[in-house]
């Protein structure tokens, strides 16, 4: 219970912050703009761009879901959102040094490289079937 309360208080500022950003975001950026960059017509380039963004950013997955939901609601393509969440969780540019230290350069590069490709595949398939 104490552990739960402690982790709750640790994640709370991040959660509140993302909620405020999502609120501002939805009020200030018109859906047409979002659709232009991550909507269906952005195509593969759009998916790749947002996948790279997901790989570079280091935000907890828990708070990426409300962001993803807001993007979807304002017209982002399912594939783009899926790509973002998947690279965000599977590929970690920030944690690379740590991973190399523990698992070696080769395994780390293989894992992150494959994860990126796999994320794009997952995104494309999700875009097709959903």
């Amino acid at each position, binding site marked *: 219970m104490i*552990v739960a309360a402690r982790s709750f208080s640790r994640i709370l500022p991040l959660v509140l912050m993302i909620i405020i950003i999502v609120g501002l975001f*939805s009020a200030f950026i018109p859906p047409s703009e979002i659709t232009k960059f991550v909507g269906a017509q952005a195509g593969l380039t759009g998916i790749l761009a947002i996948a790279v963004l997901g790989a570079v950013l280091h935000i907890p997955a828990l708070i990426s879901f409300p962001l993803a939901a807001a993007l979807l609601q304002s017209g982002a393509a399912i594939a783009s959102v899926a790509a973002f969440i998947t690279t965000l969780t599977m590929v970690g540019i920030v944690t690379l040094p740590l991973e190399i230290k523990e698992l070696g350069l080769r*395994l780390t590069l293989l894992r992150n490289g494959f994860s990126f490709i796999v994320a794009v595949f997952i995104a494309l398939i999700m875009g097709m079937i959903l």
Partner: protein
Amino acid sequence: MNNKDTKKTIKDTTSQKKAIRDYLIFSFVFAAGLILLSIFPDKKQAATTTAWSYFLEMMAILPAVMIIMGLFSVFISKEQVVKYLGKASGFKGVFLAILFGALPTGPLYIAFPLAAALIKKGARVSNAVVFISAWACIKIPQELVELQFLGFKFMGTRLLLTIFFVILMGILIERLAAQKKQKQAFND
């Protein structure tokens, strides 16, 4: 023992510092939001309505998620994970790798030393890769939040696809890593 204690205090203070930093950033974003909305009062309604609905959704799911995470981190030790996964092979190995990875037990950077320990213990590279990947993106609390915000169809499809591709990726990486080792052995 004494050494261990000092280590722990150091760790506690850095995490406290991080917490303070997070709250500071949050206050900054909050203030920036307030200023922005006072400059553009016509956006106020839309921004607060959206933020509030997301806040409610988060508060509905977050306590449960945190309790689950807390319970598992207390009941399942790292040694247990390494013990069970180190010797498991075949289908059972893959299944356990996903299961242990999916259990809510801390951030990704904990998984790296664990995976390294697994390989040292004789676990297959593919299982270690599956374990890290599952740890990264098939976490049970994450799936709950994804279900809440993105719906069952989205979450379920992504989960199934992820499991499939993660296993495939593990096998491929193991092959590629083994090739390298053989070459090295040949050169030696």
